[in-house]
């Protein structure tokens, strides 16, 4: 068919499907994220991981808190819950315990998970609760206009640290490992494939697992810190990141201008909350009613 007949273009368009379309609520696109933001990369790596895992989409639940990363849940064609600020983890905990056959993932940001929600993070990790937590760390509160957050590096300028940040930030992988997470990794949005692999590993690993994703936020963070374009921050990652699997997460601090560690820091086996709960009930021999609810779906 010739172009003149005016049919070639529509056919081409109809053939150009997004490879992850089946996971997306396409009627909600375009998304709200700014040009240069790393959230799109993190989300597509997450969806490629789901493709790779091959799970029934009906068995995957994504829970988010509030903020830019918190909006991720709303774009996914899954059972998704956009909860209150900081409370995605306890919401996910209730969901998982009530229906253990579901794969429950928390997808949220650094401010949501580690400032207002920090207490829930450490306790879920301590319990080795059977959920995976993905934190897209953009070093600031992007949604509200670029304020200082719990991961903002010392010296960074934000709208609420106009003279440069003088608070020490959390080293998230160290925090996760210390609190009891059984899988801990950190990558940047420069590493789509490694991210996908880490997500797939974290989602299929038993117990509480954690992946930190360093992501550019040119609008909120970058432009106040000489990283005006998304690519500038990616270049910064490329120049400063050092891949070291199995490194002591204590050494993974992120200090401006200095090399920082990425990789898989923790990958251990430890009885999970549901595993221990079910084992105790079996030991008590409390009858067939006891283990059915919480035992279902556990291998």
């Amino acid at each position, binding site marked *: 068919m010739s172009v003149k007949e005016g049919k070639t273009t529509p056919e081409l368009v109809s053939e150009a499907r997004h490879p992850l379309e089946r996971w997306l609520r396409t009627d909600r696109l375009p998304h709200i994220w700014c040009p240069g933001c790393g959230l799109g990369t993190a989300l597509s790596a997450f969806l490629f991981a789901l493709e790779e895992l091959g799970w029934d989409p009906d068995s995957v639940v994504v829970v988010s808190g509030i903020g830019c990363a918190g909006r991720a849940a709303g774009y996914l064609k899954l059972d998704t819950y956009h909860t209150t600020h900081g*409370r995605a983890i306890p919401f996910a905990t209730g969901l998982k315990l009530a229906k253990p056959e579901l794969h429950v993932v928390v997808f949220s940001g650094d401010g949501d998970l580690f400032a207002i929600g920090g207490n829930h993070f450490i306790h879920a990790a301590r319990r080795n609760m059977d959920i995976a937590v993905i934190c897209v760390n953009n070093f600031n509160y992007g949604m509200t206009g670029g304020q200082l957050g719990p991961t903002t590096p010392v010296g960074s300028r934000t709208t609420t640290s106009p003279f440069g940040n003088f608070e020490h930030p959390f080293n998230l992988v160290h925090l996760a490992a210390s609190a009891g997470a059984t899988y801990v990794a950190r990558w940047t949005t420069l590493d789509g494939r490694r991210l996908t692999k880490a997500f797939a590993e974290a989602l299929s690993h038993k117990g509480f697992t954690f992946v930190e994703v360093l992501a550019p936020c040119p609008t909120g963070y970058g432009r106040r810190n000489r990283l005006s374009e998304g690519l500038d921050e990616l270049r910064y990652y490329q120049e400063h990141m050092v891949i070291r699997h199995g490194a002591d997460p204590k050494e993974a601090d992120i200090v401006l201008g200095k090399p920082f560690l990425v990789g898989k820091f923790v990958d251990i086996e430890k009885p999970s909350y549901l595993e221990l709960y079910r084992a105790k009930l079996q030991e008590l021999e409390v009858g067939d009613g006891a283990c059915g609810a919480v035992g279902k779906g556990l291998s």
Partner: protein
Amino acid sequence: MSPSLTTRRSAVLSGVHFMSGDEAIAEGAIAAGCRFFAAYPITPQSEIAERLAWRLPQIGGMFIQMEDEIAALAAVLGASWAGMKAMTATSGPGFSLMMENLGLAVMTETPCVIVDVQRGAPSTGLPTLVAQGDMMQARWGSHGHYEIIALCPASPQEAFDLTVKAFALSERFRVPVLLMTDEVVGHMYERVEIPSEVPEAPRRKPRVPPEEFLPFKPDPDLVPAMACAGEGYRIHVTGLTHDERGYPDMSAEAHDRLVRRLVDKIRLFPQEYTFYEEVQLEDAEIAVVSYGISARVSLGGIELARKAGIKAGLFRLITAWPFPNEALFRLAQKVKGIVVVELNLGQMSREAERAVRGQVPVHGVYHAGGRIHTPEEVFQGIEEVYRRCR
């Protein structure tokens, strides 16, 4: 839900028991089909958590002690969306921490039951002693405008019965239901009869396949059907203002439409949740309006009044919210004065004043808490308003 969760017969402790109000709430929850409980320890609620920590694992349920009350209610909401009947229990300080997620429950129309065993407040106040100071927080504690249902038991038996009722109402209206009890009812031991069969309130399930389902499109009674996680409907649930698809809609029109529906779905059906008890009101000139433990104390004051020749009676609020405006308005047409007895310095009395619309004087007999009223104090209140009305 796995089959083990629905075989409830053995789980219900049918028969006659001697138990506390707190224990009766725990048993009421189990009888109603609740199989998920999350809470944080606080006096005078702990007996509820302790009993459910012992009972739930043995009947296929799940108990978890969370890191705070914020997490406790968040976990309850998650469990509800996973298809379970779920409850949390707390007292004043924890109730305050739950307020933000209470709003999430209202906005996302999540059925659940929240128990507040009220104690002396503000702040840490009197952790072990009675009060009824959270009644307005129950009504307006979360941000924004909303409607909610709150019930007030006056005995362990009623604590059991109203817990069952609370679950039924929460499923019927898809709204969190508050059980506003108090330290004395929570800790008093009385006879509690648990029936052999407690009908389980059904959850309103989608009646169309996933591709046709709109998760927040209401039925004619303004309540939408609820598709839970893992059921194949793949819905989005958000605390943001949303349309019938559940998608965020930041328009003023969508917001007004949604908030009005959330209010109207409850307000339009008062006959389904308005419960009260009338004692000796047939010939009464003075009506005592009270609830919870204060209503029981008021009976002593009414007896003293009758002995003194004042015809008094009791209007006991079982439903605190939505307030039974109509019933109070009609009551005011029959009596000469109203005395409100409560363990705060005037909360439900404001509602009573609003409801009677100036027809008769409303007099409060207040105590900030720490102890219950004496019958004499109630009698004095009755006498005073009686004098004023003559």
